[in-house]
């Protein structure tokens, strides 16, 4: 066995024992720390404290273990085992013995070494320390568990801050504590307030603990508006409790009205805010090719927490044009993330909803907060997913409406071809002059059709028939040409609108909204019609047929090539004919009086108090009758920005009418609580004699 292996064998029990001993010492302390952490900072703190302290303990134990090294082993063997003759150092080295004497000695004591076991060298358990450490840890744990925390156990009274002079025989508030127990759903801890003013969550339970000196007999909490709250004795203290559903003002009355009036305290009830829902996706999303599902994302925040379960209202609009069907359903969705800021990203498969091309899917998240007993429900913004119809190209950006091309027109050209072919078929059986006459008649039809098209293109047409849509057009038609043009004063140098002056513009040609390419094709069609017409009128229906076919082809091409955009215009109203005005039946028409009632200005008492508190001619320096104002504040509490503060200020002024600062404070609060009358008239003052003379002179010049 080599020296190192022997050393490892002999040192191991000692090291193990030292390590275990150290850990045993540390464990109670770690436990104590964990308990303190849990008490102080909750479960998370405890979880954090344990690994950190454990790591520290391990490091210390390792360091302690490292003390058990080779010199220690040699030293302890030499001191405890005399039979090793102080030569154990020779055993635990790998170096070759320097002299034969050394190697002889080594062999001798190697044989004796095994008379003892390595376990004998292990240090004893430090049981005393272990006991002390356990005791200390137990003490710490007990202290941590028993340590009074805010809101638990009997409250600790803070000195009173009423600022009232002590008067013999009259009880006075000396100690105070206000315990606030928020509703359970808020998750807020119970807390003790040393001040009697507090802002608490709505629905909190308030518990007052007060002490008086000398002992009071029937102390009360006087509410500024409402029933007083009686205090009950609890040992040397007095206690009372109530729920803070609305904000209120109160004062502690220890002596039933004797002595000075104590100051007012205010408890504000902070209402639970409804949750806020924000859409994280765009409000309008288009379906991408190949998309099978949609993941709209919402974030819902609340002051205390959003319920994890929400509902998603899905509205489907499927179909096109007038044939749209709507369906609506609600599906449950669950959110992720912390209670105060939850994310909702439901997955909506198109197949389960039957969502198809040309449809819209509108989703809206409905969340609730965790308020008990009545959760507040809020609807979030709507998100739209649009699946554009493949047949209907984008029409956005066009101001006109889209029409398919004039089917009547091209049907007529087909009719002409049918007529020509019929004529050619029957040609042999009928007389040539008849053929010519029929051909000429078809040529006439062709001319009419050509006329329509050329007019559609904007060309003038000699003696051409009108478009089928346009009836005969003259002075007697439905719309009015306005008679002879009104001779508007023509300013020299101004651009003249000749058309407007001498004619009346019919609307621009409908084909002007065509693109040039289509126009060219239509023109070719008209040219072919012209050729066809010529051949037909000269009695050559067979020669006309190819032109007629060509014309039909061009028209079909136009029909397939594009659509026509007709500009959307309002109805052209005829100008008013003044001579026909008031010529209809006028029974029952007469002058009427239209009643109107002015809005009542409602801050009368406030305005009166405003003047009384001021420094103007209507000011009242002494006692002011504030009862009307107080009543007005109570009835208009919902309209006022801070009715409670106003009530408090009124009470303070009532108690001490001479206090300038209190009056100024009430006046400042009144300013924010007054209506602004809609601007009355500020009358100017008449001019004096000289001014009147002056005005008379310049007025006379008129």
């Amino acid at each position: 066995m080599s020296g190192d292996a022997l050393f490892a064998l002999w040192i191991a029990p000692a090291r193990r024992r030292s390590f275990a001993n150290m850990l045993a010492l540390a464990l109670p302390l770690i436990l104590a720390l964990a308990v303190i952490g849990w008490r102080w900072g909750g479960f998370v703190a405890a979880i954090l404290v344990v690994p950190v302290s454990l790591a520290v303990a391990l490091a210390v134990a390792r360091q302690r273990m490292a003390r058990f090294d080779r010199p220690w082993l040699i030293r302890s063997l030499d001191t405890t085992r005399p039979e090793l003759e102080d030569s154990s150092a020779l055993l635990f080295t790998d170096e070759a013995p320097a002299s034969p004497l050394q190697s002889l000695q080594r062999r001798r004591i190697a044989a004796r070494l095994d008379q003892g076991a390595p376990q004998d060298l292990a240090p004893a358990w430090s049981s005393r320390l272990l006991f002390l450490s356990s005791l200390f840890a137990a003490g710490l744990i007990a202290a941590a568990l028993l340590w009074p925390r805010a809101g638990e156990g009997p409250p600790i009274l803070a000195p009173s801050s009423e600022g009232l002079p002590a008067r013999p025989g009259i009880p006075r508030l000396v100690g105070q504590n206000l315990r606030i127990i928020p509703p359970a759903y808020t998750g807020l801890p119970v807390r003790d307030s040393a001040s009697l003013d507090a802002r608490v969550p709505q629905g909190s339970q308030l518990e007052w603990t007060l002490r008086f000196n000398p002992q009071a007999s029937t102390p009360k909490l006087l509410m500024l508006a409402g029933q007083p709250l009686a205090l009950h004795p609890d040992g040397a203290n007095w206690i009372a409790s109530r729920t803070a559903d609305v904000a209120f003002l109160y004062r502690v009355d220890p002596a039933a009205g004797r002595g000075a009036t104590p100051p007012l305290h205010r408890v504000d009830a902070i209402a639970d805010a409804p949750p806020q829902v924000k859409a994280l996706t765009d409000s309008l999303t288009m379906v991408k090719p190949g998309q099978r599902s949609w993941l709209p994302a919402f974030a819902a925040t609340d002051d205390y927490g959003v319920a994890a379960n929400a509902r998603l209202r899905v509205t489907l609009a499927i179909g096109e044009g007038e044939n749209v069907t709507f369906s609506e359903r609600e599906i449950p969705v669950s959110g992720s993330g912390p209670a105060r800021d939850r994310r909702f990203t439901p997955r909506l498969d198109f197949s389960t909803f039957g969502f198809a091309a040309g449809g819209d899917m509108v989703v809206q998240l409905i969340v609730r907060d965790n308020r008990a007993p009545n959760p507040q429900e809020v609807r979030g913004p709507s998100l739209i997913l649009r699946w554009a119809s493949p047949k209907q190209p984008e029409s956005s950006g066009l101001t006109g409406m889209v029409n398919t091309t004039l089917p009547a027109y091209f049907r007529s050209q087909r009719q002409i071809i049918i007529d020509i072919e019929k004529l050619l078929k029957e040609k042999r059986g009928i007389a040539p002059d008849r053929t010519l006459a029929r051909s000429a008649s078809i040529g006439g039809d062709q001319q009419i059709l050509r006329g329509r098209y050329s007019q559609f293109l904007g060309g003038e047409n000699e003696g051409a028939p009108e478009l089928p849509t346009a009836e005969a057009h003259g002075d007697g038609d439905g719309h009015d040409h306005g008679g002879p043009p009104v001779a508007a004063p023509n300013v020299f140098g101004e651009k003249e609108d000749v058309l407007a002056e001498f004619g009346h513009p019919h609307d621009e040609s409908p084909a002007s909204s065509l693109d040039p390419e289509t126009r060219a094709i239509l023109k070719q069609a008209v040219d072919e019609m012209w050729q066809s017409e010529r051949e037909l009128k000269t009695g050559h229906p067979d020669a006309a047929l190819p032109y007629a076919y060509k014309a039909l082809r061009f028209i079909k091409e136009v029909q397939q090539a594009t659509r026509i955009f007709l500009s959307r215009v309002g109805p052209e109203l005829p100008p008013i004919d003044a001579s026909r005005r008031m010529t209809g039946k006028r029974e029952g028409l007469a002058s009427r009086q239209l009643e109107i009632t002015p809005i009542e200005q409602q801050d009368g008492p406030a305005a009166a108090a405003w003047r009384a508190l001021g420094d103007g001619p209507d000011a009242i320096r002494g006692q002011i009758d504030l009862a009307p104002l107080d009543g007005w504040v109570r009835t208009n509490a919902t309209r006022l920005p801070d009715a409670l503060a106003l009530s408090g200020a009124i009470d303070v002024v009532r108690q001490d009418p001479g206090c300038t600062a209190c009056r100024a404070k009430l006046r400042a609060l009144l300013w924010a609580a007054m209506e602004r009358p809609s601007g009355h008239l500020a009358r100017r003052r008449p001019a004096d004699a000289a001014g009147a003379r002056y005005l008379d002179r310049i007025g006379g010049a008129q």
Partner: protein
Amino acid sequence: MTPDIIVALVLTLAVLIGGVRLLLWHRAAGALASPVRTSLLLLLQPIAAGLLYMALFPPDAADGVSSLRIATANTSRLSAAASGSPLILLPEAHAISGGEAVPDLATALRRHPGVTSLTIVGDGLGPRDIDAARGLAVHFDPPPLHPGIRHLAPPPVVAPGARFTVGVTLAGLPNATTELVDPAGRVTDSGTPDKNGHVLLAGTARAAGTTAFTLRVRRDKRLIEQADVPVWVADNARPKLLILAGAPGAEVKTLRRWAIDAGYDVTTQMSAGGGIALGDAPVALDAASLRRFDAAIVDDRSWSGARGVLLAGARGGMGLVLRPGGPIDGATRSQWQALGFSFSGPGGVAPLALPKVDAEAVASTRQGIGSEEVPVDIATTDDYLPDISRLGLTPGGYDAVPLLRDAGGATLGAWRALGAGRVALFTGIDSYGLTLTGRRDLYGDWWSALLDTVARPVPGSRVLTDTGWVGERMTLCGLTGKAQVDGRVRVLPVNGCGGYWPTQAGWHMLRSKDAASAFYVQPADALPTMRAARDRQAMALLSAAEVQQASAALPGQSGTPWIWWLGWLGVSALLWWLERSRLGRHSAPAKTLQSAM
């Protein structure tokens, strides 16, 4: 003939008569008369007469000092130590050794009668001493003003609910910001001064009563100066308003609603054509009925029919507001132009540039609390802009006073005097759009401004906007007879103005038999820079006006006459003794005895 000449003549005559009498007596006495005594008497009589004259009209007592140095407030010891003319210490100056302390400048001038020129050191003379320095050559090198509020112009009487403007001029504070704080302590407007230091700040009034806003001047967030801005809000009797419209419409409906809510007694007449009229009970349009109305709002369509009678009514004192219902025709245009509104612009209808919406915090301080009928409606920058336009003609000319401008600077409203009344032109069209988009306040401001300007004047209380300070004489003007301040102090007017020494800060009422005015007195330590600037200006006026008179001698300060009286008494006593004594009388009794024998 002045008294002193008369006295001199009388005395000379008396001396002459006395001398003649003495000489006659001397001759008659013959040998008895002693020439020594006679000559002594002859000599003493003119001396006594001369002394009597001097006692009655003592000669000027000049001490030879012709200029003084006057130490005023904040005089540095260094500038006072310069040698030269005697140093006078006014009460405001620090105690400086070698100076002569006087209660005021007039006292100093009485003590030094020959003074013709003054050198002022320090901040300058106050109102107490300015008058005393009139007529002297004043040399004053003003030190720079302290940075602060140089001038504060509080609004005159404000109607309940009206918007008002406060003018402020700052001195030496180019980068300062000014804030107007409402009585509730909220900032209701803020602004930075232009290059001349002027700022205009706006606020809104509430119910009638005295109101104190606060003006704060800050530089780099640090408060430099703070001052009270007194606002006097007073209500008036219900004004009577006539609204004439050629056709019913949204504009006239909104105008009627606004005017009724604003406390007007409104009569609306809308013609619906064919002799049918809508609105209130019909009134005859003639001079007698128009005399009952304080103002009339007339549109262009109803204007043409009632032009003559409306103009006559306006000359009689009624306010006339003309408004177009749309583009106006040539005839109306030339008629309105003939009233004095010379038009410029292309005509037709032009877009109206609305002023920017106030920040929400400011807007909420401008509005009061809402009610069920009129909830609070504050426009935000995201709100829909109302479709309001104006006539494409801008009224201008020398006769018309611009009253309203849009954000682009185009004149929206102008007025001019017409006889005893006024006529205004409002070029906005469809202004009712403002009430539908949260700008009700702007709508009210526009129409209030128009009607405030033109409505028939009535006598009543007014506000004197001159600033006074506690402990300082202020001049109250516009008085027609005896008046009282706060019912205690009587003010006796001279040329319509009276002096008053306020002892208390705050509002005071000046009441005379037929009028009442309110005025505000600032605390003694308020607005120091404004006070200094006012004195500075008075000093500058004094120096400029009085230099040419500097050479003119001060009317002589009389010397003390008692020394002359003593001399005259001595000489008279000597004369009396001489007359009575036996000196120079040669045994006259013996001769008498002898002659008797």
